[in-house]
């Protein structure tokens, strides 16, 4: 599939987006990095698979969803910016290009998040989801993989909800072909009514998913047990979520109650809206800077060492910026024309791939000599940190976010000569308050020190065909 997908390299679509790099492929299509031919800005372009595009209904839906997503005005939504159809009939959506990590990856690295951070992230997700609900869009596939955590210049988190509409599209596609087994994808964040395949899945399902995500951020566990897709699905449809208090001790009672309300089996027992859920979290939210995630070695990372070519454009940029945040400026053209006085840009996308993780591996070893094939200096740590690799499937996942005209937040200026990172330490240098955060990080559980948790789960699900899963519809089912 990749070969087929990569054929678009070099193509100019929509008359102005030059495809520069293949990012990922999924069941619904593939995603590329593109550069606007006139304004010299990076975007991500998602193509709908040509086979799917032939279904008129799907095509119409794809476009409608693109429009809806484009209309979303929220800093917490990664919005679609353009839509078009290529000369050979493949529809595409142009998206922002984002720098950061998915919440899924962050969770893998951190194990659990402190309540103050978890609630703030979910509160931001609530805002993004609320904006969509206001337009009558139900996401229906919220999960940590679809929530992207960026870093503002000041080190605080900015969360972006991704893939609005894609979930719906997927549902449509399967309902047409499927008579049985309509529930796809990761069921862990699915509301009971959704798991049961009920027709009328409303806002309540998104509220439930947000609750399930918060549950996992706080406890490191999914609200419903089960080692297989079907076991989880069955549990969701027949059993209440495992009480949060028994999954995680030491949480404020009030917070436990709020999370469990969001996980109520009946939609009417949940908070009335995503906004209401977000408000209910307010007492625990703490808006402050957090240390950059420390990426650990993973098998995928090691494999990734063999393909370090993609590092090239990233390295000099990160070096140049040394910005104290994840959102380091990172585009070569930025470097080339490096205008420090340029107005701040909201988000930069850093698409890396497995190779960057390899870098993360090196860095996390604290100053060990770099792997032979990685010509990148330790200063690149931040760059590595913004790249996400799904280690179990060896796929890279780059996410789009682009500067938005109305983006209100102060963001990391690109290549604006931030202080140079303390290379001697060999740790990700881009931490604002290095010492205190480093201490915090040291105490944080790493994936390796969390026996069971994530990896164990994957053990049962991960022998999947290594289908790239950009759209998250690629299911983690075990191949028979």
């Amino acid at each position, binding site marked *: 599939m990749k070969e087929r997908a990569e054929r678009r390299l070099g193509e100019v679509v929509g008359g102005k987006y030059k495809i520069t790099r293949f990012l990922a492929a999924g069941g619904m299509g593939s995603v590329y990095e593109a550069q606007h031919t006139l304004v010299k800005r990076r975007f991500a372009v998602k193509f709908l698979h040509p086979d799917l595009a032939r279904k008129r209904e799907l095509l119409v839906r794809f476009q409608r969803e693109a429009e809806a997503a484009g209309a979303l005005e929220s800093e917490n939504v990664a919005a679609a910016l353009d839509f078009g159809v290529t000369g050979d009939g493949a529809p595409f959506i142009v998206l922002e290009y984002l720098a950061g990590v998915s919440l899924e990856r962050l969770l893998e690295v951190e194990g659990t998040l402190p309540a103050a951070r978890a609630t703030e992230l979910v509160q931001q997700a609530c805002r993004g989801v609320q904006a969509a609900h206001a337009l009558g869009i139900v996401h229906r596939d919220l999960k940590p993989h679809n929530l992207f955590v960026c870093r503002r210049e000041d080190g605080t988190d900015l969360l972006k909800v991704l893939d609005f509409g894609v979930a719906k599209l997927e549902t449509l596609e399967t309902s047409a072909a499927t008579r049985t087994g309509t529930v796809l994808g990761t069921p862990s964040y699915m509301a009971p009514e959704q798991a049961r395949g009920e027709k009328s899945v409303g806002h309540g399902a998104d509220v439930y998913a947000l609750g399930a995500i918060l549950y996992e951020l706080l406890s490191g566990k999914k609200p419903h047990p*089960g080692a*297989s897709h*079907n*076991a989880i699905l*069955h549990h969701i449809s027949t059993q209440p*979520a495992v*009480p949060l208090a*028994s999954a995680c001790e030491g949480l404020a009672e009030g917070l436990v109650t709020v999370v469990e309300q969001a996980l109520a089996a009946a939609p009417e027992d949940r908070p009335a809206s995503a906004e209401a859920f977000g408000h209910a979290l307010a007492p625990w939210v703490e808006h402050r800077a957090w240390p950059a995630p420390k990426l650990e070695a993973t098998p995928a990372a090691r494999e990734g060492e063999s393909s370090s070519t993609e590092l090239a454009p990233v390295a000099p940029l990160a070096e140049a910026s040394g910005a104290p945040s994840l959102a380091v400026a990172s585009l070569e053209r930025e470097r080339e024309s490096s205008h420090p006085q340029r107005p701040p840009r909201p988000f930069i996308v850093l698409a890396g791939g497995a190779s960057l993780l390899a870098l993360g591996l090196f860095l996390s070893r604290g100053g060990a000599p770099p792997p032979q094939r990685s010509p990148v200096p330790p200063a690149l740590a931040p760059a590595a940190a913004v790249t996400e690799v799904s280690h179990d499937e060896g796929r890279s996942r780059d996410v789009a976010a682009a500067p938005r005209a109305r983006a209100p937040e102060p963001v990391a200026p690109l290549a604006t000569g931030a202080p140079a990172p303390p290379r001697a330490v060999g740790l990700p240098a881009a931490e604002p308050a290095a010492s205190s955060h480093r201490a915090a990080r040291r105490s944080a559980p790493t994936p390796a020190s969390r026996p069971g948790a994530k990896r164990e789960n994957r053990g049962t699900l991960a022998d999947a065909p290594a289908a790239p899963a950009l759209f998250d519809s690629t299911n983690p089912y075990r191949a*028979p």
Partner: protein
Amino acid sequence: MRSAEGNTTVTEMDSRPFGARPAVPLALVWVFPLASEPRVELAGDGKRTLSLGRDDSSDVRLRGDGVSRQHALLRLGSAGAPPVIEDLGSRNGVRVNGEPVRSAELAPGAVVRLGGWVGVVTAAPGAFAEVAPGLWGGAALAACIAPLGRAAASDLPLVLEGETGTGKEVVARAVHQQSGRPGPMLAVNCAALPEGLAEAELFGYRRGAFTGADRASPGFFRSAEGGTLLLDEVSDLPLSIQAKLLRVLEQREVQPLGEVRPVPVDVRLIVAGQQSLAKAVQEGRFRADLLARVEGVTVRLPPLRQRREDVLPLFSRLLATMANGNTPAVESDFVERLCAHDWPFNVRELVLLVRRLLVLLGGESTLHAVHLPERMGERAPSPRSVEPRATAPEAAASEPVELPALVAALRASNGNVARASALLGITRQRAYRLMEGNAVDLDALRQEGEP
């Protein structure tokens, strides 16, 4: 008479003696992972097949764990021919009633597992619901107790039959609740009444009526005044007391021990037993006249093994209500064994199992088959394997049938090819082919058989 050509699609099952199998429209209902998945109707013309698998092109698309792209083929049944499932070389195989099979007939109650999916073959598909207050089940149970809904509001006496643990008392309570009778509902297990005291317990006694009667007792009948009295295992009552019971029903009054005058009572009587009361009458354990008097409406509650599609939903409900929120997930192998078990003690056994699992395996997050008691793995009849017709009908024949045997069989059956092939255990189609190549004169054989 059909020609050989016209019969090329006759199935193997046509060789079954006629009338041996009633044509029940069966369906394969999924119980795991979701009961809401569309069921697969198994009634057809005996020819149609459905493919099951992960492929988009499958007739029944199963997604989830352990399902191969092309997993199994279902040949729909017809009158006299049960549906058949065949493995299409799937990686995890097809399992029927807990056994791996290459191909198997699907009888009502068959438990089918394909990878992570578990289904049950049933003649009464329908949603699992609370069919009466406190009583949960699917369409089979709902159909059984339907007459009670109409009879509840009357004061007709009821007879509830059903194995132990099938919910007779629950049904009685539901009837009482629905009847709107103001009095209480009392349940008495007659088998547990000491024989000498049965009369006193039922009808009451005056103080000092007998040794030890140091104070008066109203007895069960008067205690249930205005309400409902369930007499469980009623055929265990001594015949002498049955006679008095008859009188209570006839006169609507009881005669407490030691009292001179009978006391009028207004009680709705429900009698229950594991066995049929008619059988108890035949065996002389139950008075025929009493049966005639109590038999207003008779309902036989189906045992759990006759409604296997209800097992997992019941289990899940019990788990959810008994576990205080912290419940384990179940895997398909667990579900398969749960459904394939015969449940001799019915729902009561299931309740006990849930309680036991919660106590012993409280810490488990996922239940597998190994967590079930060992004896639960046993189930008597294994599915009858049949040869896959679709692949090679000719080669499939187990033993070569010689022409003389066929002629003899035809003679014995007056030239009825269907019956003859049934005698030989071959398909009718095959019989026709044999005849075709050997110039058998059917008409002659038929005339031979006539006097």
